[in-house]
């Protein structure tokens, strides 16, 4: 696979445009993610944040614009290359997306089994470590339906981290959780960034989480990037609409 790194951006989105039928969701969005950085994306519900990161991983094809992941144009890859790129990108779904019909253990083993590299004892210990990482060693043999929302999120996170991704995409990691669990997850995100040197895009409207994790923030409005800056800069923005996120 050609890995021409044109610059040191891990993810680079240029002039992204997406519409579903008559609704324009994103009209002209550009962003870039630097190596080792936590980039938070803020925006109202329905502003197209989930759509944006689904484009980055190639689940949705954009109408216009280019998306480069580690220097590779996502929409030009064949299936093999796409899988190779995806294996370096972790995706935490808004709904955790645990496989209902499998236990927690099987959920975590599933992406590893496919890769066929680890087996037996090593697989078991990898799974146990991953769960311990998110503080959930005791649920290993439960079904997803027996877990609370926060536990599901954390299991989802463990399932993603088990592949040791270089880039993480978090879709609302703390939404719907109590403040204590939210803080735990925020610290986990920072911990992951430090420990594995991952670069992450974090989508959220939880301002406490933003404060904890963000190195840089962009705000989406009307399908474009309306503002960009650090937490401090945006908090004191001249635009009352942007400031309203931080209240």
């Amino acid at each position, binding site marked *: 696979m050609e890995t021409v790194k044109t610059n040191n951006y891990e993810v680079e989105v240029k002039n992204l445009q997406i519409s579903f039928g008559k609704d324009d969701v994103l009209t002209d969005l550009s962003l870039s993610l630097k190596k080792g950085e936590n980039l938070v994306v803020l925006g109202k519900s329905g502003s197209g944040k989930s759509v944006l990161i689904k484009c980055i991983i190639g689940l949705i094809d954009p109408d216009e614009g280019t998306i480069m992941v580690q220097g590779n144009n996502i929409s030009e890859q064949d299936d093999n290359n796409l899988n190779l790129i*995806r294996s370096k990108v972790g995706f935490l*779904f808004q709904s955790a*997306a645990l496989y209902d019909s499998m236990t927690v253990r099987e959920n975590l083993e599933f992406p590893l089994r496919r890769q066929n590299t680890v087996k037996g004892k090593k697989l078991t210990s990898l799974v146990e470590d991953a769960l311990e990482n998110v503080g959930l060693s005791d649920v290993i043999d439960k079904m997803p339906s027996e877990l609370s929302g926060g536990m599901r999120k954390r299991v989802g996170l463990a399932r993603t981290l088990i592949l040791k991704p270089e880039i993480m995409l978090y879709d609302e990691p703390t939404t719907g959780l109590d403040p204590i669990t939210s803080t735990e997850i925020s610290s986990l995100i920072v911990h992951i960034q430090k420990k594995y040197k991952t670069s992450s895009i974090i989508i959220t409207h939880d301002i406490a989480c933003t404060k904890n994790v963000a190195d840089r923030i962009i705000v989406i409005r009307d399908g474009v990037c309306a503002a960009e800056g650090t937490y401090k800069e945006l908090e004191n923005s001249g635009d009352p609409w942007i400031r309203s996120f931080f209240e």
Partner: protein
Amino acid sequence: MNQANTTVVAFRNFFQEVGQLTSFLVKFFKQVFVPPYEFDEFAKQSFIVGYKSLPLVGITGFIMGLVLTIQLRPTLVDFGAESWLPAMVALSIIREIGPVITALICAGKVGSGIGAEIASMKVTEQIDAMEVSGINPFKYIVVTRIVATTLMIPLLVIFSDFIALMGSFLAVNIKSDVSITLFITQVFDSLDFMDVIPSLIKALFFGFFIGLIGCYKGYTSSNGTEGVGASANSAVVVASLLVFIIDMIAAQITSLFT
């Protein structure tokens, strides 16, 4: 004018649906013979489709055999042909009633189950999650289920035929005294190759289409929890209808050869 418009829209939707189903079918055939094969998931689905349907298929088969025998007897007695009873029942069960009843039950139980399951996997982003972790969800979810129904439903039909004949034997014995060996001899004398094989081929098609429609409806369900119910529902309706259509076509084709 409005009426005409609705008809046009309905027609267009119908043809769009047929087009999508066709490309779904093509995708299935493109992937079914290409490794890697998902044997574990196939085995699990076969267990769910086959083993878990045994009680329902068995009970309905038994009752059909019993009732059919009881209903047919008076007419045959009127014609003085009571001794034909086992033969007639066996023929109608094996040629028609066994496969069709089993298929209809499976369209209801298996088709709706598959439709709802896949639709809810879609709503909860499980299919997307598979895709991002490098697993081909179409192969893992759709191909395994269609192959499982295609192979399991003929087996269920054989099982159902067998149980129905037991029911019939019981019913014959309510009014008259026929030994099991005599009953079996009468049944097998009446049957030949051209009764059994076409009916199993027919069952294979029933199974294939029940799986196909269930998967198609689930996989293409519109997002949202409402879509889950709708997918399950339309999977049953379309699959049941297709069972009758296939049955009709099969009858035409078989009659060409006999």
